[in-house]
C-alpha cells in the first residue's frame, strides 16, 4: 500500500515536470528567425542612406557599463519573489521550504540572505540563524543553526543544538513568468542535519538515549511553487522524505520507526500588496519515537518586505506537544528577521 502511494506521487511529479522540456516550440523559433531576417534587411536598407531616421544609426553600447557591474548582485527579482528563509535555513516560508531560490539575484546574478528567527511557545524557545545564497536563480546553498531551549522544570536547563546544511536546485518552471501555464516552479533539495547532543538533562546527553536511531540525518524534498498573479495568491506544496524527529532536534529514526517516510507540507499566501503577504502553512511530521507523540506543525504568518534588503515575518505557530514528559500543546509566536540582497 505504501509503495503504491509512493509510486503515485512519483508519477505525479513526472507529469509535473514533463512540459518544461519543450519550452521553445518550433513555431516560436521560426518566428524569431523570420524577425531576425527582417531586421537584417532593414539594417541593410538604412545603412547607405545619408541621414537615417535614427534607427540603427548607433547601436547602444552598454557593454562597458555591463563589464563593471557584471559581478555586482543585480537585485533584479521583484520584491518578495525570493520568499523568506524558513526555520531550517532554506528559502521558503516559515516552516516549509519552497521552490523559490533565495535572494534577489536573477538568472544572470546571485543573491544572499542572513536570517535570525526566534520562536517562543509556553515552555520552549527555538532560535535559528544562518545564511543562504542563491546562485543564478538556480542553485541555493544554506547554512543554519538551530538552538532549542526548555524553560519549564524538569526541562528548564534543556539545550539542544543542530547544524543544517542545505542545497536546493531549481528544475523547471518560473513561479512569476509562467502565468499562462499551470506548470509551477519546481525544485529539489536536501538538508544535511547533525544534532550536537543534549545539554542540561543530567546523564541524558544524546538523542539516542531518548530512542532516536541516529544523531544525523538527511531530508530530501521536492517543492512546487506557483504564483497566481490573477488571484494575488501564492501556493506551495512540498513533499519531504525524512526520518527527522522534531526536525532533527530529537534525532533521526527511532524505536517506533527507522525508515524514510514521505511528508506533505503546504503553504498558501495572499499578497495584500507588493510588501505584505498573509498566509498559512501546514507541515506533516513523522512519529518515530515512543517518547514523543510528535504532531504536525502549522502556522499563520504575516510577512513584510519594506525593501529588497530587509524582511520581517511574524507568525502564530502551533507545534503540538513535544515529548511525553510535557503533554501541553505548544503554541506561540514566531518572529524572523532577514537581511540580504
Amino acid at each position, binding site marked *: 500500500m505504501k509503495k503504491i502511494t509512493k509510486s503515485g506521487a512519483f508519477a505525479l511529479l513526472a507529469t509535473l515536470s514533463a512540459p518544461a522540456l519543450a519550452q521553445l516550440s518550433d513555431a516560436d523559433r521560426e*518566428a524569431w528567425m523570420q524577425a*531576425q531576417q527582417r*531586421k537584417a534587411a532593414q539594417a541593410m536598407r538604412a545603412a547607405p542612406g545619408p541621414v537615417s531616421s535614427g534607427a540603427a544609426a548607433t547601436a*547602444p553600447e552598454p557593454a562597458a557599463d555591463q563589464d563593471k557591474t557584471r559581478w555586482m548582485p543585480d537585485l*533584479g527579482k521583484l520584491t518578495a519573489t525570493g520568499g523568506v528563509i524558513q526555520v531550517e535555513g532554506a528559502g521558503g516560508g516559515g516552516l516549509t521550504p519552497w521552490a523559490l531560490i533565495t535572494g534577489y539575484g536573477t538568472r544572470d*546574478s546571485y543573491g544572499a540572505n542572513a536570517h535570525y528567527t526566534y520562536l517562543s511557545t509556553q515552555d520552549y524557545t527555538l532560535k535559528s540563524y544562518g545564511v543562504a545564497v542563491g546562485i543564478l536563480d538556480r542553485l541555493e546553498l544554506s547554512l543554519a543553526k538551530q538552538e532549542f531551549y526548555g524553560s519549564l522544570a524538569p526541562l528548564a536547563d534543556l539545550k539542544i543544538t543542530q547544524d543544517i546544511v542545505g542545497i536546493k536546485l531549481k528544475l523547471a518552471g518560473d513561479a512569476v513568468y509562467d502565468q499562462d501555464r499551470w506548470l509551477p516552479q519546481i525544485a529539489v533539495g536536501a538538508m544535511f542535519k547533525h544534532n550536537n547532543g543534549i545539554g542540561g538533562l543530567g546523564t541524558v546527553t544524546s538523542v539516542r538515549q531518548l530512542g532516536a536511531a541516529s544523531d544525523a540525518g538527511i531530508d530530501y524534498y521536492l517543492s512546487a511553487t506557483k504564483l*497566481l498573479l*490573477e488571484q494575488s495568491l501564492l501556493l506551495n506544496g512540498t513533499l519531504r522524505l525524512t526520518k527527522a524527529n522534531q526536525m532533527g532536534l530529537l534525532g533521526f529514526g527511532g524505536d517506533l520507526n527507522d525508515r524514510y517516510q514521505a511528508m506533505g507540507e503546504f503553504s498558501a499566501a495572499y499578497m495584500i500588496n507588493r510588501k505584505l503577504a498573509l498566509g498559512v502553512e501546514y507541515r506533516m511530521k513523522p512519529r518515530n519515537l515512543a517518547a514523543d507523540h510528535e504532531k504536525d506543525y502549522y502556522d499563520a504568518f504575516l510577512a513584510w518586505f519594506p525593501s529588497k534588503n530587509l524582511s520581517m515575518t511574524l507568525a502564530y505557530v502551533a507545534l503540538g506537544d513535544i515529548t511525553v514528559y510535557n503533554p501541553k500543546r505548544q503554541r506561540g509566536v514566531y518572529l524572523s528577521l532577514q537581511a540580504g540582497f
Partner: protein
Amino acid sequence: MNKFRMQQAALGLTLAWALGLAQAQTRTPATPDDSLFRALGGLPVIERVVQDFMDNMLADARIRHTFDNSNVKRVREKLVEQFCQLSGGGCIYTGDPMREVHQGLKLSNADFNALVEDLQLAMDKNGIPSRTQNRLLALLAPMQRETVSR
C-alpha cells in the same frame, strides 16, 4: 497510521496541482470579458498610467538606454493599445510582434523586472489597487519569454 498519512500527503499535492490546472483552464480562452478594463478605470486611466509608466522608464537608469533608438510617442501609443486590448477594452494592438520589437535589445530578466517595477509605480500613482495591478501583470508576465533574450 503511516499509510494514511502518506495518502494524505499525496492527496494534498494532487489537490494543489488540480487547483493550479483548473486555474490555467479558466484563463486560457480569450474571453471578451472587460472586467479588468473597467477595474483599471477605462481608457483615460490607462492613458495616464502609460504616460507615467513611460516617464518612469525614461528616468530609470537601469533601462532608459533601451529607448535610445525608439520613437517614444509611438511606444506610448502602442502600449495604450496593448493594455486596452489585454484588459478586454476592445482596442486592437497595431504594433509589431513583441519578439521582433525587443530582439535586438538583449534584455535580461533584471531589465524586464525593472520595467515591471516602473509599471507598478505608475499604477500606484493612479490609485489602482494591488489586486487589479496583479491581474494586469498576470497577462504581461508571460511576455518575458518574447522579450528577454539574454
